[in-house]
Every structure is written in structure tokens, then in C-alpha cells.
């Protein structure tokens, strides 16, 4: 029988993989992939809580997951547009070289 703990462990592992990917990449699109993995793990936890935790409105977790998916789509569109336009200006999307605002 699958319990809440199984979902939480999978979500935590997925979150740490996403965190590692997002922080360690030098390529901006790679960073974005890490963020998407992290959002996925959060959604997985929300669905797990919606399925297994006592609540007066059990569907709320799934509604929240739908909103997270919506925001992720908007975020991906803007971030990839930024990556393309940064590439056009600087001929690189290496996040370590984009240090114009660094003091």
C-alpha cells in the first residue's frame, strides 16, 4: 500500500536533484530545467497531501497544483525569452559571465 511517506520521500529526492541541477549549471537553460524539476516535486507533494491528509476540502491540493503548473508555464516562457534575448546581446547564456550588475 502506498502511503504519504512514499510520496514525501520521492518528492524530497526529486527536489534535491532539481536543486543541485539549478544551482550547479552554468547554462541558463540548464538552470531553468532544475527549477522545473523542483516545481514538479512540489506538485507531487501537493497531490500526495491532497490524497492522504485529512481535510474538509480534499480537492484543494489538486487545484493548487493546477495553479503551480500555470505559473510554471508563464515562468518558462518569460525565462526562455530572456535567455534568447540575452544571447542576442552578449553571445552567451553562461550565467557566470552575466555579471554586469555585480559590484
Amino acid at each position, binding site marked *: *500500500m*502506498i502511503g504519504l511517506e512514499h*510520496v*514525501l*520521500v*520521492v*518528492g*524530497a*529526492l*526529486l*527536489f*534535491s*536533484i*532539481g*536543486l*543541485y*541541477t539549478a544551482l*550547479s*549549471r552554468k*547554462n541558463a*537553460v*540548464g538552470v*531553468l*530545467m*532544475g527549477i*522545473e*524539476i523542483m516545481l514538479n516535486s512540489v*506538485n*507531487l507533494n501537493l*497531490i500526495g497531501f491532497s*490524497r*492522504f491528509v*485529512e481535510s474538509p*476540502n*480534499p*480537492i484543494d491540493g*489538486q*487545484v493548487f*497544483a*493546477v*495553479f503551480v*503548473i*500555470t*505559473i*510554471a*508555464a*508563464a*515562468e*518558462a*516562457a*518569460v525565462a*526562455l*525569452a*530572456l*535567455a*534568447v*534575448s540575452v*544571447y542576442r546581446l552578449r553571445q*552567451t547564456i*553562461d550565467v557566470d559571465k552575466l555579471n554586469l550588475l555585480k559590484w
Partner: protein
Amino acid sequence: MDDLAVVIAFYVLAGITLLSALMVSIVRDLIHAVLFLILSFIGVAGLYITLSADFVAVAQVLIYAGAISVLMLFAILLTPRSARDNSRVSYAAPISAIAGLLGAVIIFVGLNTEWAEVDREIDGSTARAIGNALLDPYVLPFEIASVLLAIAMIGAIILVRPNDEEGDL
């Protein structure tokens, strides 16, 4: 649903999801990384189905595996071959230590908290309940989300517009 089948499906899907998410950070070519990312998204959608969240699983396949991955492929293909290297990382050792520690803490907290657990058998589709929730208690966030999507779309179009067309909009 048959209990044992659900358990086996959960473990297989969790394995596929975690392995392909790991491969995203291992493979050297960014295009391969996106393909593994799609596999990971589909694995997560399968996990949603084992948790009886059919509508969210369909939305996941449509939006993540369909739209966002294609968007990423477009962004990679619009930048030349030299920018497709996924292998360069910075501070790999300390970051993996931090990520592993954070994951361990989350697992520890998750396993040691007394959740008010019930096993809720959801029968039938959740689409009707989600639709009712979106249009009754959550109608304001729903409308704000649609406005936000429109803003993001217009912003993305303006960001990638070529510079020489700036005057004649």
C-alpha cells in the same frame, strides 16, 4: 484498483522519474537533457495517476511534457551549438552536499511528523470537482492566473522581438 499493481506502478514510475531527473544533470548535451526532462515529467504524470489525480496528470502531460519542453527545445535550437554544452558546472561538490543535506532534512521531517492521515478512495474523475473549485471559491486566483498568462505571453513576444523593428510597431 488492484493494490499490488498500484504499488509496483508507483515504484517503477518513481524510479523512472528520479533516474531521468538525475540524467538531466549528468548528460553532456543539452538536447539530451531536455529529452530526459520530458521522460521525468511523464513519470511524474504517472505518479499523479497512481495518486488518483487524473486531471492534474493530463494537465502535466499537456503543459510540461508538451508545451514547456518544446519551448526549451526552441530556446536551445535558437542558440548555436557552442551554447548547448550542459557539462560545465560550478561548485559541484558543495552544492551537491547542500542539496543532499536539504533532501535528508526534508525526508527526516516528513517521516517524523504526525500527519492526520486518512486513506481517501477517490472514485471517478476529479475534473468535475476541480472545475467547481476553480469557478466557485478560487475564481479570483483563476482570473488572475489567466491575466498573468496573457502578460507573460506579451512580455515574451516583446523580449524576443528583433531590435531593428523597435520603431514601427
